[in-house]
Every structure is written in C-alpha cells, then in structure tokens.
C-alpha cells in the first residue's frame, strides 16, 4: 500500500485533467486506508466483508460519476466520502436493521446530559490537542472492551436517545438482543453498559484524563 504522499490539492488537479482513470487509481492507492478506517468509524460492527462491499460499491458509483464527460468533481475526496457514507448506512441497515445515528441527530439529549456537570465543563475547557488525544484514546479503549461490553457500547450508540427518553434500559436490551442473539434482560443490559462505562473510565484515567471523571463514583 502506497504511503500517504499525495495532497488533496494534487488529487483535485488530477481530476480536472483528462486521465481520470489514473486519478482514481492514485486516489485508491493513497487514500484506501483512510476510506476503510472512515467506514469502520461509521459502524464498528462492520466486518471485513461489510467494509469491502461498502468500499467497492462506493468506488463503482464514484467512477460512474467521474466518467461522465460533463461532470468534473470540485472536491473528489469529499464526494467519495459522501458516497461511502450513504453505502455504509445502507449496508448497516441491511445487516441488522441498524439505526445509524449521527451526533447531529442527538444534539439535544447530548447537550442536556452535559449541561451543568463537571464532565461537561472539563470537556469544554479542553484544548484542541488534548481533545484530539482524548478521542484517539477513546477509540482504542472501545475497541479493547470485552465482547459483551463492546456490544453494549455499540447498541448504546444506536438507542441513546430512546434510553434517555424512556429513562429506561429497555431499548438497550432490545438492541443488544438483536445484535448478539443473547437473551438479555433490561437489568442485564444496564449492568453491561455500567461495566463498559467503568472499563472505559478506567482506561481513560490511565490515558491521562482522570480530571474528567473525578466526580463519578
């Protein structure tokens, strides 16, 4: 796999040229890993076949566009990313009826939960570099969760708003059952999420973010 040595501006220029097939070849050579990791970031339940299908289908659609003589993409990488996101959502829904959420869909319950808390304040006060480090550490911590906790975390991403609205882990239990086939009760779902939270808190504390969680018992 080629190392990342081509800039976005260079790719933009290539797509304005006449040899667009070559431009797509270079895009694949230099940006494939970025795109695969992006797909994985959208839906952590994806396995290798899921990501492969999403990537190839998105590339096919992207190629169909760039082959059109009357179309010259202004931002080819952004276009590919957009197509990838649409295909990833389709795949996630087909795979297990996933309700794929974006942070923008949850802005009100998220804001309400963070408001007037130490966690929320510490997060607001974080410098950009520190928040980047936090995010990187969180990604790693989630991937290292034990299997049942990992499923609970994935499920929570999809039903967070429902759990808050109902003030109950019932939706979490339902989603865990759908994802894992486990016969999981509401009480067990709450315990699994609690265990995942404790595990993440421990890992993030070791990563240097203890000050965020000092008020959590």
């Amino acid at each position, binding site marked *: 796999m080629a190392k990342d040595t081509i800039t976005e*501006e260079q790719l933009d220029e290539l797509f304005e040229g006449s040899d667009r*097939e070559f431009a797509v070849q270079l895009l694949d050579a230099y940006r494939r890993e970025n795109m*695969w990791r992006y797909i994985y970031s959208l839906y952590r339940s994806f396995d290798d076949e899921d990501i492969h299908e999403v990537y190839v289908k998105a590339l*096919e659609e992207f190629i169909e566009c760039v082959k059109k003589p009357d179309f010259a*993409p202004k931002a080819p990488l952004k276009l590919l990313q957009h197509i990838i996101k649409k295909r990833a959502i389709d795949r996630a829904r087909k795979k297990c009826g996933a309700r794929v959420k974006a942070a923008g869909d949850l802005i009100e319950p998220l804001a309400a939960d963070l*408001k007037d808390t130490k*966690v929320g304040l510490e997060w607001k006060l974080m410098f950009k570099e520190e928040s980047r480090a936090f995010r990187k550490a969180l990604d790693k911590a*989630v991937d290292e969760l034990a299997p049942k906790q990992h499923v609970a975390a994935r499920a929570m*991403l999809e039903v967070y708003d429902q759990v808050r609205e109902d003030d109950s882990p019932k939706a979490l239990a339902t989603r865990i059952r759908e994802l894992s086939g486990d016969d999981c009760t509401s009480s067990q779902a709450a315990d699994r999420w609690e265990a995942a939270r404790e595990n993440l808190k421990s890992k993030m504390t070791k990563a240097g973010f203890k000050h965020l969680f000092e008020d959590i018992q």
Partner: protein
Amino acid sequence: MSDPLGRDEREKRAFDALIVSNLLRDRDHEDLDDLPELPDAIKAKMNSLPDDLVSKLWAKSPEGRIEDCQALEEASFEETFIDDEQYAGSGANRADMDEETKRKLDEARRIARETMIKKKKWNKGDAKS
C-alpha cells in the same frame, strides 16, 4: 431546588454523552489520527485487494445508476458538521437557542463552506479578480 437525579447519576450521564458524542462525531477522513485503527482481519482484507481493482471497476462500470452527479456533489457539501460547542456548550448550547439563532448559525456555516470552495478555486487561479 433538589436534584432528582443526584450528582453522581448526572455525572455518569454526562460521561455517557461524552462517549456517544465522540464516537458518533463526523470524522475527518483525511486525518488518520482521527480515525480508529482497523482490526487485523479487516486490515488483511484491505491489503488483499488486487492492484488492478480500479482498472477492473473502470472497465465494467455500468451507466445510468446515478443520474445527477452534480446534485450528489452538492449534497456532500451540505452535510452538517456538528462541532463540540453545540452540545458541550460554551455559551452556544443549541438546545437553548431560539429558532432565529439556529438559523443564523446554519447560515454562517453555509457561508463558511462557500468561502472554502471559493478559496479553493482562487488558489487554483480560477477566481476572477
């Protein structure tokens, strides 16, 4: 005024919100540091793709599935990216905003995006003086 949840429960919920918001955030596909590492099996699959993948897809590419590529590209620019201020708050908690303020925020974001596109064109020497 009494706090029905209790401080510990509120902090736990805030931590939940922090986890969820960070895992669901829009990622910068250009920044490998912002993207999670691939598990070994997925990485192996990625590396096993043929070198001539693009050539094969180019040769067989059927037409007619996408009618309006221009609209598709415009949609890619209209994706709303939520930044931290909007849910972590910093005097700009969107949950507390009225409709007029939300509209102004969205308008500012639209202008910023268009400026970015124009700046890109200018850098390529396409902008008229």
